């Protein structure tokens, strides 16, 4: 064949290959799944629920109730089955479009499933699937069906998956009682012998039946709304306990995940009289071993400002500031100690102390590894040191209470 002929031949062949898109999927034929949830049915099967975005209704009415939108921004479909891939296929009986998991933001797992079956059976599919991202956030539903968190319509952020993820982000940043964990981190923690996972939990306040209807978002106070509610503690892949309030924050302190938060102390018998806003903090966990027996020490250094004062205190006096700092240190220390205690009672090393020991003394870890959670961790001696530093006092130096007190005298 001459050169020209060859060239034309190749050109003709490439047409066949270039024009075809083998695995093409049109946008209008895809069902974007924003959230995925798993419940346990009474027969012991899984119930998977997918939350599909209803594209036409996302853009209309960005703020609040949405006004004219008569159909909801998301549609939810549920199927039951014995494994996840099976259910992914079964759900297509109800969907008109191909389910597309690459943009899934959230996985909700019900507390019942997490308690009875544990997480490992469901994680493999999430890890193996190409479409599904391991950066997806995982949440445990607390005292509610996981499905109900997806069916409830939400206000400002109209897709409840977005709402839940954003709530987590915000509350982790502002309060520090919740933390965002993704599938990848969860798997890493479950497979590690020196660290057990903690996951954020969400609960549904209100009536789930009310939450399903568009009416839910047409009043200024939502009838039903998902709410972040502490942390779930795991052991060997199974949910064993909840961590709430200050203890949850203590957990985040220990995990070095607190960004900003408010800590309050009592002052002259007035409870929570002085509020302190933590601006930045650093927590270090280290281990020392004596004769093969580990001892952990946690040292926290927090920096922040005075946020509020309810009693007359002389904030212009450095000695007083020092005294407040000391009290604050004690307060944070007690939070951390509570968290450590709860974990020790449950014999679940959610802080990764085991990994710290492993890194410090790999040889000793070999001996400790087997009985780490059940014996060594549970009886571990933990030393907590907290240093809280007050840098500024806000726009006011002495509180108006000081003036009020003087007038009173």
């Amino acid at each position, binding site marked *: 064949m001459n050169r020209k002929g060859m060239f034309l031949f*190749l050109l003709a062949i490439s047409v066949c*290959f270039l024009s075809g898109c*083998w*695995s093409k999927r049109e946008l209008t034929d895809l069902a974007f799944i924003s959230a995925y949830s798993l419940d346990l049915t009474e027969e012991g099967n899984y119930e998977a629920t997918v939350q599909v975005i209803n594209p036409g209704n996302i853009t209309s009415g960005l703020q609040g109730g949405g006004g004219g939108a008569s159909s909801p921004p998301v549609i939810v479909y549920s199927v039951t089955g014995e494994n996840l891939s099976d259910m992914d296929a079964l759900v297509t009986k109800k969907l008109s479009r191909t389910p597309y998991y*690459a943009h899934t933001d959230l996985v909700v797992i019900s507390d019942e499933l997490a308690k009875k079956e544990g997480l490992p059976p469901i994680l493999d599919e999430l*890890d193996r699937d*190409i479409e599904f*991202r*391991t*950066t997806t956030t995982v949440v445990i539903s607390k005292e509610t069906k996981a499905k109900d968190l997806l069916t409830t319509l939400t206000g400002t952020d109209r897709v409840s998956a977005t709402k839940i993820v954003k709530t987590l982000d915000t509350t982790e940043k502002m309060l520090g009682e919740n933390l965002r964990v993704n599938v*990848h981190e969860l*798997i*890493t923690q479950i*497979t*590690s012998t020196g660290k057990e996972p903690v996951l954020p939990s969400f609960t549904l306040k209100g009536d789930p039946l009310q939450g399903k209807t568009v009416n839910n978002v047409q009043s200024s106070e939502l009838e039903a709304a998902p709410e972040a509610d502490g942390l779930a503690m795991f052991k060997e892949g199974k949910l064993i306990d909840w961590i709430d309030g200050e203890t949850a924050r203590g957990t985040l302190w220990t995990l070095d995940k607190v960004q900003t938060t408010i800590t309050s102390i009592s002052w002259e018998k007035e409870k929570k009289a002085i509020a302190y806003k933590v601006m930045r903090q650093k927590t270090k966990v280290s281990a020392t071993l004596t004769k093969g027996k580990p001892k952990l020490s946690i040292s926290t250094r927090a920096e922040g400002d005075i946020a509020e004062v309810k009693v007359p205190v002389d904030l212009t006096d450095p000695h007083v500031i020092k005294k407040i700092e000391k009290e604050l240190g004690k307060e944070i220390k007690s939070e951390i100690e509570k968290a450590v205690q709860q974990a020790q009672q449950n014999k679940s090393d959610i802080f990764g102390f085991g*990994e710290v020991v*492993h*890194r410090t003394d*790999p040889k000793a870890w070999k001996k400790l590894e087997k009985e780490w959670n059940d014996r060594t961790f549970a009886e571990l001696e933990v030393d907590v040191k907290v240093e809280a530093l007050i840098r500024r006092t806000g726009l006011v130096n002495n509180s108006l209470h000081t003036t009020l007190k003087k007038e009173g005298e």
Partner: protein
Amino acid sequence: MEKAKISSYQLFTLIFLFQIGSAVWFPVSLDAKQDAWLATHIAMAGGFCLFFMYYGLYRYYPDLPLTEYVQRVLGSVLGKGLAFFYVLYFTYVAASIVRDFGELLATIAYPTTPLFILNVLFLLVVVYTVYKGIEVISRTSEVLFVAMCLLLLSGILLIMISGIIHIENLKPVLEEGLSPVIKSAFAETLYFPFGQMVAFAMIFPYVKEREKVKRTGLWAVGISGLLLALVAAGNISILGLEHASRAQFPLLASIQSIKVAKFLERLDIYFILFVMIGGFIKLSLFFHVAVMGTSHLFQVKHPSHLAYPMGIVVLLVSMTTASSYTEYMEEWRAVYLPYIDSSFQAVIPVLLFIIAFFKNRKKAV
């Protein structure tokens, strides 16, 4: 031997892209656990030794490629036999690279496309490049090298910014002592990718500036080795040992976990580009040396005429070598790596070098 010439800079880019070609996305030296980066360093030292050997042979026969000088070293009959086996070896490596690629693309990007189609498409491009000759391959690699550098720099930057590196995952260093690290380095990483440099024994004679071959080669091996060690350390510090050793393609998993400023995420395309650039050069080179070796051996006047027919051979071998990815990997680990690779990359060149040394000493006397 075609009358092509390549510059030492082109040689550098060729070696660099060749080395990181398929090694960058394979789980390299993970037998050494969190010390994979150390194992890569040790293997790199071994790689330098191998390079010196190939270079030494090149110094004895600066005008001849490997398949020719084996005939000078071992005599015509034995040499031709060995050259024939080398050609088979190069062909098989080319086929295995095609298979690697097909498997990777079928796994991550084109799940419903048959492997055969992926392999055909990839080979079509490569066959055309090889048909055009080594100069074209070198110029392509010169261009792609720049692209690769930009990708690497921006990739490293993104990973650093997104704050997903947890250096503590690399601890404890040398948990089990030095022996598993050395074992992993010399059982696996030395032959993949460092030993594959044996293909350059066929390329060195093309280089214009002969005195620069040594320096260029050492730099290229050193830099690509350091990069591989960096990738190994990066994967483990990002993913943790457990996940990194479970992942089919650890680098992909690492890249997928990049998240910068809530919009720079899902950068899988980085991975695909790494793979395509490196793999293209690596496959082109192996396929080129296979074609050149065949043409010398059977005295075919126009080596490029062999490109298309041999492309079909490579395609068929790549398809028939194993029925599943698991089988393919097992084949590689159990037979290919410990026996075939080690003999063609290390044992035979050492013997050749020793014989060549004595032969040439006699001549000198």
